[in-house]
């Protein structure tokens, strides 16, 4: 890639989309620290401004030494609220990766960083795995030895992967095509969600293509393994290009969608043409359905759903800067009483809240949300992100589903 002499583009190239130079914008207004849900509940995390634009000035490659930044969950609220466009969460994400590179990534984080491997290994021993993860007697030693908190929510492995189902699913010929990016969680843990996504999309008269696909690399990124994350993201982008370049890529996992849309480029600095292409045509499933509705193309043959549901927008969905499209679309469903939970973060931060040393922090961050849910006492809680769903369900005891499942039901699905 040619180096430009023009100052800023050079800075951006060498620093990756201007992440580090953006610290020049920090005037210490402290808005990010006021908004950070993690700094509010733990002294272990001094706050996004502190570990971000301030301490970045003291980092010097392999000599950098601050464990505090590992207590950032990467929720990204700081970057979203910054009036000066400082890339706070991105600076911190890179610092975390640097830290891990120096000190080595613990076995636990290596495991958590590879949901595809976990899913693949867990499936053949599925009954044992699911039993073990639900059994306190097993979870104690798992916490001691591996460092996954005994009370943390872990998903159960499904008997068949979504890909196995998809291979046998007859492709509907149609003029308008979409590519479905289902993500690891749907494939191994929640294939049911994938089947509903396909049904809802086909109901709109679309041909749904489901290419073979791997992990997006997000858990690797948030656990500090950037080199592997770059490989994963690039490989996934190439897999998703199976269809021609104008075909939209629809994602039902919000965090994985954000990875493709922004983080692979902005945090990992991947500039592979395949990724650049895919990043520009990836849509959150509800973002896409809302677009269809705005074009008058969304089917509205809904059956009434007489339920009270409470909706929580996860951080990684909010960071896509698309508003809350699930609320917009579900507002069309007759009979449905929608309650918007006006809280920022549930506390799980992907794999953050599963970890032994962070579980209590995670529960404290989510406390307000959990109490709102209990106070609302809905029939169902809706949330677009899988790890948030598992965490909220475990913490509150309420059933938590993807809003798409509710939409599926409103279309008469079961």
């Amino acid at each position, binding site marked *: 890639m040619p180096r430009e*002499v023009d100052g800023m583009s050079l800075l951006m190239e060498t620093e990756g989309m201007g992440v580090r130079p953006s610290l*020049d914008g920090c*005037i210490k207004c402290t808005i990010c620290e006021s908004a950070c849900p993690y700094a509010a509940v733990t002294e272990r995390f001094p706050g996004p401004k502190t570990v971000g634009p301030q301490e970045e000035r*003291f980092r*010097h490659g392999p000599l*950098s030494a601050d464990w505090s930044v590992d207590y950032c969950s990467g929720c990204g609220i700081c970057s979203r609220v910054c009036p000066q466009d400082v890339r706070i969460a991105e600076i911190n994400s890179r610092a975390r990766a640097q830290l891990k590179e120096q000190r080595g990534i613990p076995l636990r984080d290596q495991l958590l960083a590879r949901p595809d491997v976990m899913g693949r290994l867990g499936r053949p021993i599925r009954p044992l795995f699911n039993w073990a993860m639900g059994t306190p007697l097993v979870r104690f030693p798992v916490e001691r030895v591996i460092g996954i908190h005994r009370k943390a929510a872990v998903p159960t492995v499904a008997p068949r992967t979504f890909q196995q189902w998809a291979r046998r699913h007859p492709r509907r010929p149609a003029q308008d095509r979409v590519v479905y990016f289902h993500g690891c969680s749907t494939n191994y843990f929640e294939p049911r969600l994938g089947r509903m996504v396909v049904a809802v999309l086909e109901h709109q008269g679309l041909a749904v293509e489901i290419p073979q696909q791997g992990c997006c690399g997000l858990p690797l990124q948030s656990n500090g393994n950037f080199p592997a994350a770059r490989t994963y993201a690039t490989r996934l982008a190439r897999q998703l290009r199976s269809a021609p370049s104008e075909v939209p890529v629809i994602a039902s996992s919000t965090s994985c969608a954000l990875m493709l849309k922004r983080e692979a480029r902005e945090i990992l600095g991947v500039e592979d043409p395949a990724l650049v292409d895919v990043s520009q045509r990836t849509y959150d499933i509800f973002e896409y359905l809302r677009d269809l509705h705005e074009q008058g193309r969304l089917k509205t043959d809904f059956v009434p759903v007489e339920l009270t549901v409470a909706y929580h927008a996860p951080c990684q969905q909010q960071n896509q800067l698309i508003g809350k499209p699930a609320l917009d679309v579900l507002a069309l469903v007759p009979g449905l009483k929608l309650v918007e939970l006006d809280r920022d973060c549930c506390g799980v931060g992907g794999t953050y809240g599963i970890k032994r040393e962070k579980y209590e922090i995670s529960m404290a961050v989510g406390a307000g949300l959990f109490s709102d849910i209990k106070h609302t006492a809905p029939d169902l809680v809706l949330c677009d992100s899988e790890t948030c769903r598992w965490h909220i369900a475990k913490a509150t005891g309420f059933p938590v589903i993807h809003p798409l499942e509710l939409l599926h039901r409103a279309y008469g699905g079961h």
Partner: protein
Amino acid sequence: MTEALECQLLVIGGGSTGAGVAWDAALRGFQVILADRGDLATGTAGRFHGLLHSGGRYVVRDPAGARECARENVILRRVASAAIEDTGGLFVTTPLDDLDYADRFLAACPAAEVPVEEISPAEALRREPRLTPAVRRAFAVRDGSIDSWKLIWSCARGAEQLGARILPYHPVTAILRDGDRVTGARLHDLRSGDELDVRAECVINAAGAWSGRVAQMAGCEVAVRPGKGVMVAINHRLANCVVNRCHMTGDGDIVVPSHSVSVIGTTDTPVEDPDDIEATAEEVASMMAAGDVLLPGFSRSRALRVWSGARPLLPKTAAAVGDDREVSRSHAVIRHAQRDALGGLISIAGGKLTTFRLMAKDTVDAACAELGVEKSCTTAETPLPGSTGSNYYRLPDHQADFEKGRADNPMICECELVSQADLLEAARVHPKGQIDDLRRVLRVGMGPCQGGFCAFRIAGLLHGHGAYDRTEANATLRAFVQERWKGQRRVLWGQQLRQARLDTWIFQGVLDIEHLPT
């Protein structure tokens, strides 16, 4: 009321030279008193770019000066390691620089004992990714970054431990004479208002750019010519080693990493008054533009602050005119007994921070001759307090230290990672310290917000701990905010302007600083 003190050597001037003389003389067993008109390191030494010379800058023009630097560089790394960051340095030939000069530069290094290694442009860019990609040749040298405040404080502390007395805020009001002999000086204690006579066997005029004035009080002349040098600090490190242009020295051709910032320097303009050296807007603009030659994007980076220092230049001959950089930086020790038939007075003029130890040695050697004693210099072998010969300063170490006590130690200065415990300890060691004095010890207020968030915390905290009464707290806060403002005035554009607006709202809008009770 006039008090009186006695000593063998009275050193006037608490810059690097004066502090170096005090340390050297105390090591040789002299009873020393050092006085400065302000705090230590507030003249030229505290207002430079922070470069520990490898000698590379002088190899072509002044090989003898280069050799001095190269030798002192090795010695200071041994005895003052805690004040030094071993950054290394690069001399790079940009498209604006003469390729022939690079050959002359490389050829001149061995004779001047300046270690140098040519590296490929690709390797230079690997080491410093923001370096201009148009670099044509690159040479690695042993430049470093040196913290003059730490250096001077450790000299002063070391001297004190050996019995010396350090008197900051004690300007000289008169040189005391007895016939053709200087017998001491009258000092004015700015804090108490008292006069203080110090009787000394020998007075050392180490007032740097101000040494002409001190000499004048004794009725003789030191022909030092103050030369103004302008520097600009950039918000963060754009390069982690010293970056020099490989050419005959010019304006803005060196960028030094200094703690968390990058400092570009410098200019050289003769001035009449070493206290009248404010940088002009044109000088700042030329620094920013010059930075782009070495580090593209420099001028669009956030500038924090501008300052200037007055070099104590010593003309080779009285007739020397024109560009000050043609004047040798080398120093001269003047024994007024020999030159002016005035005993008991020695002046040291010229020099540069990198050679401060050598200057001190030459000066104390002259004092020994003046007093007829033989005591040899040991500063080249004796580490300064806090230095072990290998404990170089490293930027992330400061972060690591801060990290250890983070949980139960509130942060006072966010930009420079200074904790409440650090502040209270510094205030204990410097009982009458103004906030600006504590800045030179702790670096409080040196970062992007220029004191906007720490100044009121410091004033309030130290008032709460009884270090200041109400009047003192308000006065030092006002003085500090004013001082920080002065340095920012010339860089008020872009992000620093936004910062200044926020700071103004804090101090004027929230604190109503102009109407604080006195």
